[in-house]
């Protein structure tokens, strides 16, 4: 059984359907990527399963429980940690307080402390900035903090929304390596990302969305080599691609 199972999702905002019949499976311990151009519906897909966008139809199963149409604040309790793309840290709280907020739904004070210390070992960049307000962090550090904050709820799975956007090459490498360490430690991940190369090369399986539909799926690295991807991804007509390849 997959850990997360999205079945035939139709989602959007108000009365506009943006995601059209998309199904995604995430197996325990895997990193699954969803890629696609601007406006293809990848963010809407993630938001719809967290109750932040409108889910018209489809089913969401997590750990075999039906969690279709949960409310945003219930997600942490079922074991989903969400890292939004922007505004993903509490800027007026210190780094340490941000981590504490991440553990808001937990009551085991002692183990929260241990977990925070573990996070600092794992993310030395954050340890150095413990007492600083999050607004003083750089883009890469903020992203790390957002991920660390989500980890503080001890999620079984992380939902990552373009974790590498706005980051320099160096910073995206740091963030991605950290993510891989977290993955290796047993947290599954569903990641949507523009940085297709990094996303595909590191994912067990990937889905390519275009205009709200899944146009191609497969093993990440294989997909990266696939010539069809290029055509699908850029949304070009076949002739155009052929012309380009001449």
């Amino acid at each position, binding site marked *: 059984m997959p850990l997360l199972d999205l079945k035939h999702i139709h989602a959007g905002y108000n009365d506009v359907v943006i995601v059209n019949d998309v199904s995604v499976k995430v197996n325990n311990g895997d990193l699954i990527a969803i890629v696609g151009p601007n406006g293809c519906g990848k963010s809407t897909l993630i938001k719809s399963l967290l109750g932040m966008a409108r889910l018209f139809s489809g089913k969401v199963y997590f750990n075999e429980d039906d969690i279709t149409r949960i409310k945003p604040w219930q997600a942490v309790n079922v074991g989903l940690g969400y890292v939004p793309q922007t505004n993903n840290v*509490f800027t007026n709280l210190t780094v340490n307080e941000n981590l504490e907020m991440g553990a808001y739904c937990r009551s085991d004070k002692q183990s929260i402390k241990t977990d925070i210390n573990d996070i600092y070992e794992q993310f030395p960049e954050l340890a150095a900035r413990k007492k600083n307000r999050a607004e003083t962090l750089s883009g890469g550090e903020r992203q790390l903090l957002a991920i660390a904050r989500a980890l503080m709820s001890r999620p079984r799975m992380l939902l990552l929304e373009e974790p590498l956007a706005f980051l320099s090459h160096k910073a995206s490498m740091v963030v991605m390596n950290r993510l891989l360490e977290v993955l290796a430690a047993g947290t599954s991940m569903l990641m949507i990302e523009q940085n297709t190369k990094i996303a595909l090369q590191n994912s067990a399986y990937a889905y390519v969305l275009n205009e709200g539909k899944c146009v191609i799926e497969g093993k990440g690295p294989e997909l990266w080599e696939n010539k069809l991807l290029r055509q699908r991804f850029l949304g070009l007509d076949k002739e155009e691609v052929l012309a380009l390849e001449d």
Partner: protein
Amino acid sequence: MTEQIIINSLVTASLYLLAATGLTLTFGLSKFPNFAYAEFVTLGAFLGLFVLRNPDGNILFALPIAFVGVGLISVLSYSLVFKNLVARSTNLIYLMISSIALGYVIRHGIAEIWGWRTQSYQQVWTIYRFGDLRITTLWILMIAAALLTGIVLHLFLTRSRLGKAIRAIANNPDLASITGINKQKIIILTWFFGAGLAGMAGVFRAAATRVVPMLGWDILLPMFAVTILGGIGNFYGLILASLILGFAENFGVVYLLRAGLSTEYRMAIAFLILIILLIFRPKGLAGGK
């Protein structure tokens, strides 16, 4: 003489701090200015009167009773009126009008129970003299209450889980939601404690002056001035702003007298600072978020 003005300024600052703490915190959380805070202060004053009329009445009983009573009225008003309006994303101006309307309901409710005539706590405060300087027990009590509030709230906001959650919601409500914070519970808590402090401010104000149904309204503008001056939702800014306004008003009055102007203009000082600030630093002293 200057020492006396400094003491007076601290007393004024303490009053504003107590009265406006809830205003700034709920403004930060619920994103609208609650004009009924004027009446929360008034209600506190009258609950104090109720206690102090009793032969055994003592201001130390009056304070907690005003705190709890006003806090409960505030929570009630939130659950009956503002919760629904906020949920329906009512336009900001209508929210403000509703809070003004609520203010009238409370003010005239108070007048119906206790009457419009001017009343007084009829308490005698011991006066300590240090040379020319005079300090009353009431003033000491006020400054102590403000200090205590400052310290307790500082510890609460920085050390406790709920306090941090309040700051988190004010900073980024959506993110707070996905970290599993139950917003309603925390908003209600803030409405309770904030209004409770305003109720205590009412007791102090009444003890220092007199008890009338317009008592709260008379300090509403300075309350808004310190709220905006300190930056909405910013408790530390509020402390600083209360001090600034306390000093500006008390020293200002001296200059007003010297210039031969009416002391009625005391309130205009708060207003003037507010206007200048809004024009030059619309986000408050703490500024640019």
